[in-house]
């Protein structure tokens, strides 16, 4: 491989970062970065990955401080250089891309100025040249209309756009080393794929050495040449990517669940559900548009799509947590829209929700036992204190926790454990239907797998129906029987999990699946052509496109797509697709299968 012969551009030796109490947060880390090589740095939360990444630039986030070791760049130790010389190395020789790009940009300066001044600092150009350079860099990282975007402020950018700005800033002075600290956390899969492809190309074309901090096995498998594993402040493994994944079962996709047998009546049905949020100037945000959906008892339906596609709003409308603008929802045979406030409150026992961040959904001051008892206090006046305590203990056991957690407070537990208890609380009133709104997206990959296993077991035991909202296709594939794909408030494709994942028809679904990163280093995304990709980002839900909503980003778009709204139409094999060209793919596939 290239890595064997390439020169080492950064070497860290015995790098140590300490907390004010003297505890080593990064403990004697040794690592080498070679030109043209992408090195992954992974490990559980709190292992010290980010701290190590910052330490490579000779920086430590307060209250930590650098406590020892060397960072050799171009034969000089960055840590023993005088501050002014060390400063000049940062940004010129080693660039940084951070996890939260919007927070990293100054809120009161336009982004063109921020990119330009970094370049200016390291090259000594004048202000006009810096502006030109900023616009050039924005164009290079694929931002449309870079002249206008250069005048934008951080809060006016989407997360994906802000991350591109940071790359533009990092690449402006053309450093030989790039450190990227979880650069794609918080980005949608299609944007994540665009971003990582760009980084990969930058590394390979320019010979940049890159350290990529990530917890995602899919990112490691697809983009990294080598993987460093960190645990409790120490680098415990340094292996080529294939060796890192060797021995793991490469389950590109978990076993797909078959549909529950009984064709029972749906537990929840939505017909032509729409939600518009009016704006001041008479326009409206079209969050959900004509959504029709039904879920049967014991069935898990996945709702996928990018941020801004209306998934969360759809889930909340189904529970009438927010009032739909139009349409009807039937839950357990009763029309939610006509219920009185009192009846609706009683029916809430049958329909529950689990939200994304468990730390937000529990009262931080309450012991968890009290939080778990609360739904019983509200909905079960017939139960006495003893019965409630018994039910709480039963719920805790049900989600596989120790009874002692009833005495704990939220901050005493890890996010994964707390999310289990959030699920237990949702189950307290024996609901028939639960909306799971991104319940795994703030969790580590391991905790995510455990939650999915738990949800599968609970569904098998209790027969509860799920609407599982997520942008993480791996968990959707592992949990759901059916998948609904949303784009800009509309359903664009619906079908069984097998149909959607193995043979997606809508161009957007195809792009979503193609952007998904399998945990398989033998089948890397960067090694194969990518015909199914959508460019750019989701359009504004205020000024909707006139034709098909995807037309501006679609690789299959023809003139007709720009003018003609698309309708959801059934296709062979129990699925519906919102694309007039979807049927063509059918014949494509037949040809392909025939060959």
């Amino acid at each position, binding site marked *: 491989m290239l890595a064997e012969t390439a020169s080492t551009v950064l070497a860290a030796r015995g790098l140590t970062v300490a907390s004010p109490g003297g505890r080593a947060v990064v403990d004697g880390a040794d690592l080498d970065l070679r030109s043209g090589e992408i090195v992954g740095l992974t490990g559980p939360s709190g292992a010290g990955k980010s701290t190590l990444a*910052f330490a490579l*630039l000779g*920086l430590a*986030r*307060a209250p930590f401080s650098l406590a020892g070791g060397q960072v050799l760049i171009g034969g000089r130790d960055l840590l023993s250089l005088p*501050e002014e010389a060390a*400063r*000049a*190395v*940062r*940004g*010129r020789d080693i*660039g*940084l891309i*951070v996890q*939260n790009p919007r*927070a*990293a*940009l*100054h*809120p*009161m*300066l*336009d982004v063109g100025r921020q990119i330009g*001044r*970094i370049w200016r*600092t*390291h090259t000594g150009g004048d202000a006009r040249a810096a502006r030109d350079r900023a616009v050039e860099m924005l164009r290079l990282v694929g931002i449309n209309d870079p002249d206008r975007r250069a005048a934008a*402020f951080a*809060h006016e950018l989407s997360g994906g756009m802000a991350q591109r700005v940071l790359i533009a*800033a*990092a690449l402006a002075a053309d450093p030989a080393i790039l450190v990227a600290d979880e650069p794609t956390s918080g980005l949608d899969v299609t944007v994540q794929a665009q971003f990582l492809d760009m980084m990969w190309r930058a590394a390979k074309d320019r010979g940049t050495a890159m350290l990529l901090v990530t917890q995602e096995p899919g990112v490691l498998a697809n983009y990294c040449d080598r993987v460093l594993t960190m645990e409790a402040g120490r680098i415990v493994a340094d292996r080529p990517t294939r060796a890192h994944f060797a021995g793991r079962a490469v389950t590109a996709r978990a076993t797909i669940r078959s549909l529950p047998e009984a064709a029972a009546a749906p537990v929840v049905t939505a017909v032509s559900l729409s939600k518009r949020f009016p704006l001041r100037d008479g326009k409206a945000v079209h969050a959900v548009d004509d959504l029709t959906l039904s879920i049967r008892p014991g069935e898990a339906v996945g709702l996928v799509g990018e941020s801004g596609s209306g998934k969360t709003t759809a889930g909340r409308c189904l529970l009438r947590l927010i009032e739909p603008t139009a349409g009807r929802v039937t839950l357990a045979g009763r029309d939610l829209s006509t219920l009185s406030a009192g009846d609706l409150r009683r029916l809430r026992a049958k329909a529950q929700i689990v939200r994304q961040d468990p730390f937000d959904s529990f009262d931080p001051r309450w012991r968890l036992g009290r939080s778990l008892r609360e739904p019983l206090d509200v909905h079960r006046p017939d139960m006495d204190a003893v019965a409630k305590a018994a039910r709480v203990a039963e719920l805790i056991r049900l989600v596989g926790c120790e009874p002692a957690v009833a005495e704990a407070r939220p901050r005493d537990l890890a996010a994964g454990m707390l999310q289990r208890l959030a699920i237990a609380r949702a189950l307290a009133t024996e609901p028939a239907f639960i909306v799971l709104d991104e319940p795994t997206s703030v969790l580590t990959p391991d905790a995510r797998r455990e939650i999915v296993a738990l949800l599968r077991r609970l569904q098998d035991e209790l027969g509860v129906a799920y609407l599982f909202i997520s942008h993480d296709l791996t968990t959707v594939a592992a949990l759901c029987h059916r998948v609904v794909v949303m784009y800009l408030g509309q359903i664009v494709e619906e079908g069984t999990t097998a149909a959607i994942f193995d043979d997606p028809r809508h161009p957007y679904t195809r792009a979503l699946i193609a952007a998904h990163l399998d945990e398989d280093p033998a089948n890397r995304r960067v090694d194969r052509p990518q015909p199914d990709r959508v460019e750019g980002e989701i359009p504004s839900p205020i000024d909707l496109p006139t034709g098909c909503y995807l037309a501006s980003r679609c690789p299959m778009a023809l003139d007709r797509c720009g003018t003609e709204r698309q309708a959801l139409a059934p296709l062979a094999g129990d699925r519906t697709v919102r694309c007039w060209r979807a049927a063509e793919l059918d014949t494509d596939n037949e040809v392909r299968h025939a060959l």
Partner: protein
Amino acid sequence: MIGRFVVRRIGVAIVQLAVLAVAVFFLIRLLPADPVARFVGLNATPEAYAAAKANLGLDRPLTEQFAAFLGLAGDGRVPGLLQGGLGVSWVSGAPVAAEVAAYLPVTLELIGLAFLVAILVGVPVGAWGALKPGGAADKGTLVYGLFAGSQPEFTWGIVFIFVFFVGLGIAPGPLGRLSPLTEPPDAITGAMTVDALLAGRPDLFLEALHYLMLPVLTLAFVLSGPIIKMVRENTGAALLSEHVLYARAAGLPARVVARDALRAAFAPSMTLIGVLFGFMLGGAVLVESMFSLGGLGQYAIRSILAFDYPAIQGVVLVISAISLAVYLILDVAHAMLDPRVTL
């Protein structure tokens, strides 16, 4: 955008002032006080009492009095609120509007200079304390905070008079705005320093500044406390922010990083400055009285003690209007500084 915002806010301010005018008018009359007795004295005959009452217009029903206050009824001798008048002072017999116009500039001059001094001292000291935690500025701030914030203006005023006038003899006595022997310049704006300059008298300008030295010092001394604290906190938070860490990682020079942090820290401080303004008006009342400056604060106290209803109403309305104007100016300035704020 900003123009529309300003127009809307002025509209809202007019409504606020109208409500305030009504409230003040009636609330003041709910007081268990007898202004007539105050004017005629305890030994007046019933006839003299009734005559005084009729003279003040207090014999008429409340609605009629209110109509006269607004300028809708009455003899037309005195312009009402709708004609831009504030009535006639019961004590002096002069129009309240004219009296306020004479006293207000003194207060504005005092507050303006104190504000300037407090900001010129407070912002650098606060920023310095944040940039060098534990340094001299930081420690000094702590000690200063313990003293300045813990004592009201009149304590410091007396201490300063004792130290700088009685002790060191470098400040004039608390006798007003100029030496009693000096012929004041023509009152054009009412602010002594400005009038001295307009009259082409730099000697008077310096004398006026000299006489303002202790009042301004007193007010600024107390006011710097919250300003230093606020700048210190906001700058400290900005220095710990992601964007400052990123700016350092990008290799930007230390002075650029410090400027970034200050810029981010200053915008949210604007809101607090508005709050401080109200706080300062209260402080000005005490300081004016202590140094015999004859400002609006002193006028307000005199009017309250004399039950001079028209004067009290006038002072309340004028001070409210000024406060609303200050808030508006600060909001516009904040929006111009910070692109995240939309008006």
